[in-house]
């Protein structure tokens, strides 16, 4: 079982994701350069946080065109596990792998702080290690994390049990308090909070480990 962490120019949580998986989860992880046409032999993909290509345009708008994203799309279509964290979530919505958009925080300011998340479904390869209704604490750190989608899409997400996490105390104005969503096939998750920054007590919380443990469990059953 191997995790791949995509590195775009401007990714800055790539190392944190690698560290969380390889040290705190204890599973192998490797970096994949944005220019690669192939994902190699990885079993799960992490799109990490940061400012891909500077994000001077809409966040994630350029990353969408990178060579590696074509491979990620194919990987996802084949049922591979893909998690996009923060900038990774932004890239997933830009790519169309997840619906909706992430717009500027309601405060119009960057916000960095630990927040409480409610697990809305345990029925996914990213949340199976948690229970529905469980509260997890992990940090957010973003300027454009306000989840937005039209009413129909929001209704659909709820009807199909695709809202993975909600904020207990909405920090950024996200519609319906949404912090993380799944694709219809439930193998792609995008979330603004940073589970990789909450994987040991020294970081202030180890709650984020549940996300990676869920992924590891899903991969173990697969193989």
């Amino acid at each position, binding site marked *: 079982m191997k995790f791949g962490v995509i590195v775009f120019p*401007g990714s*800055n949580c790539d190392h944190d994701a690698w*560290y969380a998986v390889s040290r705190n989860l204890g599973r192998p992880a490797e970096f994949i350069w944005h220019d690669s046409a192939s994902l190699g032999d990885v079993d799960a993909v992490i799109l990490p946080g940061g*400012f891909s290509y500077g994000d001077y345009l809409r966040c994630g708008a350029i990353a969408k065109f990178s060579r590696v994203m074509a491979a990620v799309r194919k990987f996802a279509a084949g049922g591979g596990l893909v998690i996009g964290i923060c900038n990774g979530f932004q890239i997933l919505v830009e790519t169309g792998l997840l619906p909706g958009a992430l717009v500027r925080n309601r405060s119009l300011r960057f916000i960095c702080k630990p927040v409480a998340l409610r697990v809305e479904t345990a029925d996914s390869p990213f949340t199976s290690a948690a229970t529905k209704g469980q509260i997890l604490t992990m940090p957010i750190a973003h300027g454009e994390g306000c989840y937005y989608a039209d009413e129909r899409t929001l209704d659909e997400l709820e009807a199909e049990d695709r809202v993975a996490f909600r904020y207990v105390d909405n920090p950024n104005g996200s519609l319906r308090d949404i912090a993380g969503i799944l694709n219809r096939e439930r193998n792609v998750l995008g979330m603004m909070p940073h589970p990789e920054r909450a994987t040991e007590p020294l970081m202030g919380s180890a709650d984020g480990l549940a996300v990676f443990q869920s992924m590891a469990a899903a991969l173990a059953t697969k193989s």
Partner: protein
Amino acid sequence: MSVITPELIQQHQLSESEYRKIVELLGREPTYTELGIFSVMWSEHCSYKSSRLHLKKLPTRSRLVLQGPGENAGIIDIGGGYAIAFKIESHNHPSFIEPFQGAATGVGGILRDIFTMGARPLAVLDSLRFGPLDDPVNGSRNARILKGVVEGIAHYGNCFGVPTVGGECLFESGYDGNPLVNVFALGVFKKDEIFYARASGVGNPVIYVGAKTGRDGIHGASMASAEFTEESQQKRPNVQVGDPFMEKLLLEACLEAMRTGAIVGIQDMGAAGLTCSTCEMGSRGGTGIEIELDLVPQRAAGMTPYEIMLSESQERMLLVAEKGREQEVFAVFRKWGLDAVTIGHVTGDGLLRVRHHGEVVAEIPNRDLADEAPLYDRPHVPPGPPAPAREIPPGDPARDLRALLASGDICSKRWIWEQYDYMVRTNTVAGPGGDAAIIRIKETGTSVAMALDGNGRYTRLAPREGAKLAVAENCRNLATVGALPVAATNCLNFGNPERPEIMGQLVEAIEGMGEACRFFETPITGGNVSLYNETLGEAIFPTPVLGIVGLLKTEMPITPDFKKPGRAVMLLGGLGTTDALHFGGTEYVKVILKDLWGLPPALDMEYEKRVHDAMREIAAEGLAESAHDLSDGGLAVAAAESSFGPSGTGAELDLESGMRAEFLLFHEGPSRILISTARPERVAAIAARHGVEAPRIGTTVEGRLRIRNYGQTLADQAIIELKDIWEHALEDHLRG
């Protein structure tokens, strides 16, 4: 070729005697380009011509210092084969003219200083000072500057991916037209993989990497060396524009290129850009450098040699590689999508030779530029006698405490630091809001604590004592989290050194700092001097800011907040003492009486150090459930702040002191740390062994802060009310 007229010399802020020295060194009149080159290298900002003489008085060595002043950053051995590089820089002048970009490029500049040496930046802290937000005339402008500066720091640091883990933010009307933005950065590397800014090996290629050169920031260094006048807004084009994404690429590419082993020396292009990097690298290496400006990547068409040499475009580096291995270096920069071109080579003649279209436009001995800058022993006068104490009317302690908690200096700075990503890289053990920030070093299993502090009011009253108090407080902050201070970096923000009273402040402050740093064994490994902080003849308070780093084990941090009811509250160091004269620099006098007089609190360094030693021992035994040092606002404010943690635990303090209530609650005598503990006898025993008072002054309780003296209640309030005031004051001020 332009003729050098007296007006031109004056415009370049060179004195007649400085110009004569240039002519003497060259043996001829300088060209226009050479005049520009000399003017930036000999500016106060680059040459330290007013301060150099006195900076020599600072201690710079210790067993752990691997690199002292004179390089891009100081370096300390942290054991386990690793080292840290750290330094502080000011970006005061640009931040006034253009707050967002001024602050952003301040962060960018100091980050380059760190990774130029091969270290990966792990933490940034900022020391900020603005004019008061409630000033009837300038309040809204001050608020705008603050917002711009904070946004600029956030923009740059967050995108680059370095956590901003702490700092300070204070207000004083002296900073109205002259805010202070001092940025500290720290990075880590293996101690045998340090890179220096030296050009060696005759024939080796000189390679330019990073962003293209534009017309921005020309004469930024000179601007930073002059007072502000009403025309200063016209200097907006002198401020550079930062691109943190480019800097992130530059970081990764430089560190990767360094691993090829093909790089001989490297320096960032900061103040004075290409000029400074070429002549300093040559001077340090004892070599010459010849460059052809046609080869320099340029953003604008038709740039003159003068403009190219003096541009302060950001995110650029100059490096010297081993001849024949250029392609290895180029390959790395190509991978990261960056320009990297050979623009010249190292020579053996010691000259900086600049060609443009093949023609020599400047030819100056590197040493003359970098090391032969004028050195001034400017006249200085000692500070006058202290202003006598004024009468202190009896206050209402509970009301005064609320007023202090709502004041700009003391209120929570959460509104600021929540805009900074203070956790990226997952090393932040203790982030903003505590006495000291702590980051762990994953590679060594140990941690580094950092404190950043200065006190302009104290230094204004007595520069020597003020500087000593700043050192003491920084070291106390570190001790409070259990760290041992090992080294310091300083940023000296002062007014116009050509005025003897200002120069007097500078000299006294440096001497005081030197004495204290020697005493606390925290050598100064580098830093920055920012002079001419004046607007329309009004100087700032003299503000020496120190960043001190300490070492400690990696473990769950000691934080300021009380954790559980029923714990003993102890005041390590004791209640201290004051008189009206030494009370005049306190926040109480500033906020409640709107005054300033007398002298700063008296400091006994011997006692202070014993308090630190005792605190470290208490920390090492895991006895302190919370620890918070007493500083601005004294005991009452420290007790309130300790009550603002997530647990909602407050305290009942029962004091027995003959001091009047205002002194007892709000005096700022140093050498004191407020602790809560489950084992007061053990804490008392440790304190006694170090010869330090540690009275048990109360007990933690649920939800209230009550302070009594000999049974008389001085303050009694619900924590939630106090916390609400403290938490929201800054936002309220900013909303104005």
